[in-house]
């Protein structure tokens, strides 16, 4: 594009057309009366500033690459692809299936209640059925005893372990973190979660991983307590989508981003509304300002010399 533009217009761009307008524009240049020294000083200042900028950019990137862990690449997520994009709710629903069948064995989702699924991933009846599958501890009853009952919509998704110690004891000392805000609580967000889930590989030569740990280049330090959890066809999706590893990882990442941002789609609605309203208001206030100021901006100021002193 640039090359063909150069071929077509190169000569014309370089030559100044002999019209009066460019000459007039030249006269407006503030650099004309500058001395050679001043021009040289400002030029060198500009070059130095540019050089410093390039150096900063280089430093910023080279040092980032110097860390020990692999940084996840950027993936095109539904919620970040466009200005007003919302969640792919079918994917979020599949992600819930992945969480329920795979992740829930070790990871809690303590801030998500079954009622939040209604209208987002499930119908009310489906969400109720999901809740009823779980046995929730309640009480104390009239005799002061705690008891288990089927879940209700107002219940939160139960934790796999009663406390952190139990979780650590069952997982070789590692604590599986709560996943509600996991995409928000990690640098790299969704990209990081997706990369962790799909990034397991054999440790490179020279790197030993202790027993009970696994090698994942995206995890800081490389040795992660969690074994690879997602494999092709590890579960069967209810909507028939082929459950490849990357599909499973994408869906569960989408779901976990939704659990951290249940208000996301509402936000997008408000974004659209507020941008429309505010654009009108900005335009209106700009016009009003120009309109009210027009008399001031177009006024003429005269210098009226004082009358000469009377001759004596």
């Amino acid at each position: 594009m640039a090359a063909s533009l150069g071929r077509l217009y190169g000569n014309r761009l370089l030559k100044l057309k002999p019209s009066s307008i460019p000459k007039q524009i030249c006269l407006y240049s503030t650099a004309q009366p500058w001395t050679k020294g001043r021009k040289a000083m400002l030029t060198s200042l500009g070059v130095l500033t540019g050089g410093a900028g390039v150096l900063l950019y280089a430093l910023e990137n080279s040092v980032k690459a110097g860390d020990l862990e692999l940084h996840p690449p950027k993936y095109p997520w539904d919620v970040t692809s466009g200005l007003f994009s919302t969640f792919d709710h079918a994917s979020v629903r599949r992600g819930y299936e992945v969480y329920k069948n795979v992740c829930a064995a070790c990871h809690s989702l303590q801030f998500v209640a079954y009622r939040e699924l209604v209208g987002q991933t499930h119908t009310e009846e489906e969400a109720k059925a999901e809740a009823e599958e779980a046995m929730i501890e309640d009480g104390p009853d009239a005799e002061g005893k705690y008891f288990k009952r089927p879940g209700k919509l107002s219940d939160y998704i139960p934790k796999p372990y009663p406390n952190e110690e139990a979780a650590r004891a069952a997982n070789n000392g590692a604590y599986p973190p709560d996943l509600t805000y996991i995409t928000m609580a990690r640098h790299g967000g969704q990209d990081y979660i997706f990369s962790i889930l799909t990034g397991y590989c054999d440790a490179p030569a020279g790197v030993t991983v202790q027993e009970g740990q696994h090698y994942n280049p995206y995890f800081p330090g490389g040795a992660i307590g969690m074994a690879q959890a997602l494999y092709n066809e590890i579960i069967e999706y209810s909507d028939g989508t082929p459950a490849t590893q990357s599909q499973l990882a994408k869906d569960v990442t989408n779901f976990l981003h939704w659990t951290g941002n249940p208000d996301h789609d509402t936000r997008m609605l408000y974004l659209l509304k507020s941008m429309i309203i505010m654009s009108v208001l900005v335009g209106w206030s700009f016009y009003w300002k120009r309109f009210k100021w027009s008399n001031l901006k177009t006024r003429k100021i005269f210098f009226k010399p004082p009358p000469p002193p009377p001759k004596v």
Partner: protein
Amino acid sequence: MKKNFKIINNFLINLPTPSNISYWWNFGSILGVCLLIQLISGIFLSMHYTPSINNAFYSLIHITRDVNFGWMTRVIHANGASMFFFFMFIHTGRGIYYGSFLKKKVWISGTLIMLTLMATAFLGYVLPWGQMSFWGATVITNLLSAIPYLGNTLVSWIWGGFSVENPTLNRFFSFHFILPFILCLMIMFHLIFLHEKGSSNPLGLKNKIDKISFHPYFTIKDLYGFMLVFIMFLFINFKTPFLLNDPENFTPANPMVTPPHIQPEWYFLFAYAILRSIPNKLGGVLALFMSIIIILTLPFTMNLKFKSSSMYLVKKILFLIFCSTFMLLTWIGAKPVEPPFILIGQILTVIYFSYFLVNPFLYKITK
């Protein structure tokens, strides 16, 4: 009653205002709007927030997930603080560039407002009780231990215990609630002092020459400024509400796990970079406070024929270098303490402070 109307009239309607003040003079009123946004959103948040170390983090999650428009109130309050600082830095920069600091009472009250705002923002950042809240509070309160003899006692006194604990969170909440009202009072004084002689102007001329009434000219011009600010603010709040938030703060505070990189919010990074550039604890703390306090020297050291820097090429260049240094320090503050960032930070710290030392001597050069 009549008197009250007279005050409003003198402040907002008939106030004589220089006709030539540019859009750089809009930021004062914008800061007023920022304060209002913070006060209103803050009061609504306080109705649902629980200042206890066992509940603070969870009460915030309750606000964002269960309270009507809680998610919106929370992001408005969090991003509103950033907006407040962004515009305050511009407002202060405007004052430095155009010589507004020559109105000494206005400048001193303004500096005090800035310090109070910084204190308020710091206290507020501790309240969500996430990892960065806790560790930020630990690092910053520990700075006071650098004070000889009294340091450690003072730090324990502020904590109300032997570490950042429940009493600390409780009192930080109390002070975070009360300081904005003190801020309002200080802002009133800032305005009263300003209106003694009226605003300065970009040309730095004697300001009696050409004045126009505040209404309708500046009420409408300010309104236009508000609209531009609102559209940007709403865009950030709805599109990328957690752009400026540290991911660490989505994890509840844990005194047993230190985050790998502890850093404050972006608006404190320049001062944080200055603090880390001095290889001595007390020296670093002094430099940190001096980075703000030093602007108080301006009215006493700058005495030029023309108030505005726009009249002097060298001053313009120096001011641009100063602004770039400020931004670069902000960048350095977010970097780990390792080469080459340590050296760059130290060089930038020297450049930052030398602006205030070199500028007074310019009088002789530019005479």
